């Protein structure tokens, strides 16, 4: 800081010291300590067992499955987020705030419930179950079910980021482009997209993080496969949820590094 903080504009040295130590103590206790435990547990037996653990077939297939889900979910979220943000941030219409709260709804719903609703809708004893069975389509306990549950949970992330930013930016630049004769796609690609690209990236990252880390929703959609003999695709699934701590933490570590 260039100028000396004046007395009346900041707290006394004791208060500052107290606040800083309270904040750091809380962060240390609740955030730093768990992080240290993750690292030490993962590397407890040295680097070689750690590498062996992430090369185990179960671990690899679980990892691939998680990445597959992310690869499907994130582009869908991005596409939908752009459409929703365009409709909500660029136009005023009746029922707009209702639509915004509906988009936020999955935040307020337990991940377990988001898994449950799909079991109730698409499971073998669910509403659409018999129909799907006739056509021999397996959704619950298989990849599509996990994708759907993850979609539900990560649904608001991109849209939220974009709506906040686009509302703040207003429509002026788009109007200007319009008066200069630009078409719809031209406006979007040349004017809007460059303005929102960082928020878009951040939203995509957030939803990818949540998709990778989601446990409740996905485990419900796949939970019963341990108890009942369902198709073998389940096996790879149960790895994502049951994979033990030490196997899982290594690639979590890569993820944390990526994020920071």
């Amino acid at each position: 800081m260039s100028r000396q903080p004046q007395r009346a504009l900041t707290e006394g040295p004791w208060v500052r010291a107290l606040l800083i130590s309270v904040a750091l103590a809380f962060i240390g206790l609740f955030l730093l300590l768990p992080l240290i435990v993750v690292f030490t547990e993962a590397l407890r037996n040295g680097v070689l067992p750690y590498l062996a653990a992430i090369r185990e077939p179960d671990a690899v297939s679980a990892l691939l499955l998680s990445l597959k889900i992310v690869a499907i979910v994130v582009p869908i979220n991005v596409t939908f987020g752009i459409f929703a943000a365009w409709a909500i941030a660029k136009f005023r219409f009746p029922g707009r705030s209702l639509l915004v709260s509906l988009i936020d709804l999955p935040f307020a719903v337990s991940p377990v419930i988001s898994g449950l609703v799909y079991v109730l809708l698409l499971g073998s004893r669910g509403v659409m179950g018999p129909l799907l069975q006739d056509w021999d389509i397996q959704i619950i306990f298989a990849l599509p079910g996990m994708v759907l549950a993850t979609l539900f949970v990560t649904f608001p992330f991109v849209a939220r980021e974009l709506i906040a930013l686009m509302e703040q930016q207003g429509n002026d630049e788009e109007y200007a482009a319009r008066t200069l004769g630009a078409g719809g796609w031209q406006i979007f690609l040349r004017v809007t997209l460059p303005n929102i690209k960082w928020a878009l990236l951040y939203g995509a990252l957030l939803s990818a993080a949540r998709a990778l880390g989601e446990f409740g929703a996905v485990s419900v959609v796949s939970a019963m496969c341990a108890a009942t003999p369902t198709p073998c695709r389940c096996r790879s699934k149960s790895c994502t949820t049951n994979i033990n701590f030490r196997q899982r933490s290594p690639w979590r570590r890569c993820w944390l590094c990526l994020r920071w």
Partner: protein
Amino acid sequence: MNSLAQQRRTLPGFGLAMGVTITYLSLIVLLPLATMLLSSLGNGPAFWWQAVSSPRVLAALRLSFGASMAAAAVDVVFGLIIAWVLVRYRFVGRRWFDALIDLPFALPTAVAGITLSALYAGNGWLGQYLEPWGIKVAFTRLGVFVALVFVALPFIVRTVQPVLLDLDKECEEAAATLGASRWQTFRQVLWPSLAPALLTGFTMALARAVGEYGSVIFIAGNLPRVSEIAPLLITIKLEQYDYVGAAAIGSAMLLLSFVLLLVLNLLQRRLQRVQR
């Protein structure tokens, strides 16, 4: 603000964007949720009430909502202090601590739960010092609370931080020139702008904490009627193929969260009106 018709004429894509949004929203969110509400009443309202009012379910709901509110309240206090310190003060490692706040977002919830229970178990790093004092954290209700504090913290910090950054220094300077003490300035100049953000943060933290599953079940011990949370009860019912029972608990949770969010939103509106 010009009218909708005018806006539609000037900017294209309203119909397309709106259509896609509503279709997607209905298919992914509304239709499945409606299915759950309908099938929860599959055996009649009396059955629904019976399923929801059993002592085990009531205890689970009470724990879920009680522990979430306590955790969100604690996080509001410490989250405000953390956000204040991170925004206003300069100290060594500030950026690292700032990055650390996002950890609960980045860590998969199951890993978080296992880590916390390893930390607080009787032979864990913290548990071995707490247990001689008679404080048991892992596998008790206190464990549920600790896990929820961990999960909900970033919501408060990340909502308050931008508001603090945005505050005009001029208002504080004006208050200081008028002879206000630091505490008076905080109480009367800063607090009215911070309160709505804190309430928003509290709401989001609460919503997340009520539904949290992965990180809680590993540290809670999951004793029926003692440390069993409502989302876990749903998965238990599902494993027993009690679909209607699971849907009943799910709809009860949904209803309770709705009422809570509604109350908090009304409070928020009143706060903003007072501010104006």
